[in-house]
């Protein structure tokens, strides 16, 4: 039993990481009905940019951090929206999704050539001490990730449902034409969503990189698992990311423990297929009316 709890807690800790990365999928989906295949790279890059700023200008970490974060928000929040999303959004989902694939190659290769092909350690914002929960060891870093994932999703839910700005954003997401008639500044709302997405990626990057190290190829795994988590949880609900992330994390951990380490990756995927066959919109998702 103690063993099971250890695996469970490890799974929840990993799942929170996937959840944090998966929020971005749901945000982008809600505003632009598209899939950002560069989401994993969005989580990889801020840490690399920070280390790069520190290395290039010889700055202390906090200053490099500010520069790295500012550059990232500018380029991959506002710039991403203006340069990639805006011209393409009216041409349907697929070309935009493919464009984000090309973007992910640019980000990956850029991080590799501009910074390093090797993993680099990244300083932790929280203490790295271990604590014991029900006999299972868990690091404070992981606890922080779990707390931040819950808090971020709670805050976003409250923001979208409980504030004027959030409701305007929601209206924009659901029907831009009507929103525009109602006098909502649609453009600004969409921009806000993409900035929010980039900011969340920064938070995820700062929390994940100390554990997973900063490396150009890290986005691949994180992106894939976050994507699966978003599908399982439901693409059109922010809290779906949390449910999906935790479920996938736990499934992965238990699969490694009790199924087969060689096939551990199969278990979350089989879970994915089973869930979407029973509930196609995901566990938390609501049905969408599809316009023809």
């Amino acid at each position, binding site marked *: 039993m103690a063993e099971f709890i250890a695996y469970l807690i490890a799974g929840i800790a990993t799942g929170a990481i996937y959840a944090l990365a998966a929020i971005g999928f749901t945000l982008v989906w809600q505003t632009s009905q598209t899939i950002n*295949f560069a989401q994993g790279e969005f989580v990889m890059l801020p840490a690399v940019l920070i280390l790069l700023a520190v290395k290039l200008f010889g700055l202390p970490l906090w200053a490099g951090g500010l520069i790295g974060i500012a550059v990232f928000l500018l380029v991959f929040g506002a710039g991403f929206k203006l*340069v*990639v999303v805006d*011209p*393409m959004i009216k*041409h*349907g989902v*697929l*070309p*935009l999704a*493919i*464009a984000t*694939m*090309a*973007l992910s*190659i*640019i980000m990956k*290769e*850029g991080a590799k*050539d501009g910074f390093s092909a090797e993993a680099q350690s990244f300083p932790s914002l929280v203490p790295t001490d271990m604590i014991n929960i029900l006999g299972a060891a868990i690091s404070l870093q992981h606890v922080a990730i779990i707390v931040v994932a819950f808090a971020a999703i709670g805050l976003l839910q409250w923001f979208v449902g409980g504030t004027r700005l959030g409701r305007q954003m929601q209206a924009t997401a659901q029907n831009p034409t009507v929103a525009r008639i109602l006098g909502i500044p649609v453009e600004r709302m969409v921009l806000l969503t993409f900035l929010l997405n980039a900011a969340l990626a920064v938070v995820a990057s700062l929390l994940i990189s100390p554990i997973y190290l900063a490396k150009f190829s890290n986005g*691949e795994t994180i992106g*894939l698992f976050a*994507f*699966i988590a978003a*599908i399982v949880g439901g693409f059109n609900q922010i809290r779906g990311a949390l449910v999906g992330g935790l479920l996938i994390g736990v499934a992965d951990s238990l699969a490694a423990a009790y199924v087969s380490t*060689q*096939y551990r*990756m*199969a278990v979350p*995927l*089989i879970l*994915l*297929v089973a869930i*979407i*066959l029973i509930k*196609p919109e995901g566990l938390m998702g609501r049905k969408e009316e599809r316009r*023809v």
Partner: protein
Amino acid sequence: MSAPALESTAAATRSAARRIDGALITLLIGAAILWFAPTGMGRYGTYVLSLWLVMSIGVMGLNLTLGYAGQSSLAQAGFMGLGAYTTAILTTKWGVSWYAAFGLSGLLTFFVGILLGFPALRVRTHYLAFVTLAFSTLVWLLLRNEQWLTGGAFGIPNIDRPQFFGIKLFGALEFHRFVVAVTLVLSLVLWWLVRSPWGRAFTALRENPVRAASLGVDTRAYTLLAFAIGSAYGGFSGSLFAPLVEFIDPSPFTLSQSLFLLLMVVAGGSGYFFGPFVGALLGVVLPEWLRFAGSLYLIIFATIVLALLIICPQGVSGLIERCWAALGRRFGRKAGGTP
């Protein structure tokens, strides 16, 4: 109002028919050029041309699924893997002739496509993408883990190239010509398929699924068939890939390769008959050509693709069509003198 509309529809049909005949002629001329192209190119150039054609076959299949039936498959590289491993295992371990292995690869991937597509399409069309996402990773895991059959991470070496009526096709040029012939045959089949009543049903499906359904087209059956045939083309492509490289391991058949094939379809122009050839040209030949740029070549490649999609989301074929139409309008204006 209705008469000119009818007329323009008829004109569109006529021009479509012309365009398709143009497609046939281009295919034949293209094959002839590619037959002789490698002279003076060296083995490297020949190999890259062959690789381009082999990938084109896989992309063609995906184009049928995506461009004609409107379904995203994230497992085309997985199907290529199934085909490549089927061929490699049958020819190296059991001494089956390549032709039989080629046919079996196509059959296997066709039926796997049916099995996979049936439940997915029953739920909602959108979710085939997610089922194939899971499938492509599962195939990769099987290829890597079942070492007794697939050679696991070490792959299968020394895959023989086929013979053609006793002529050994071991040399780069001979095998290239063989690839040209097979590609031509497969393209002709697809050309015929797209023109046939079936194919028109596919097109109707893409243009307006609701209308197609109301006209009595069994949407689900046609979509399923398009996906299965598209997957079989993936299998055919893999079946040629194995003897071309003479070695396979699981790495060319990952999920990210499937996504890359999808990128080729869209960048080439999804739904255009020649889109896959352009797309594979971009995906296979362009990076090779950019090698002169040194370590930045992949960034340059991806930037070109990104810029292309931003400028013209319909891909290269769409861009060409747009230019063509613009030219046509200008000429039309000059000739007719009316705006």
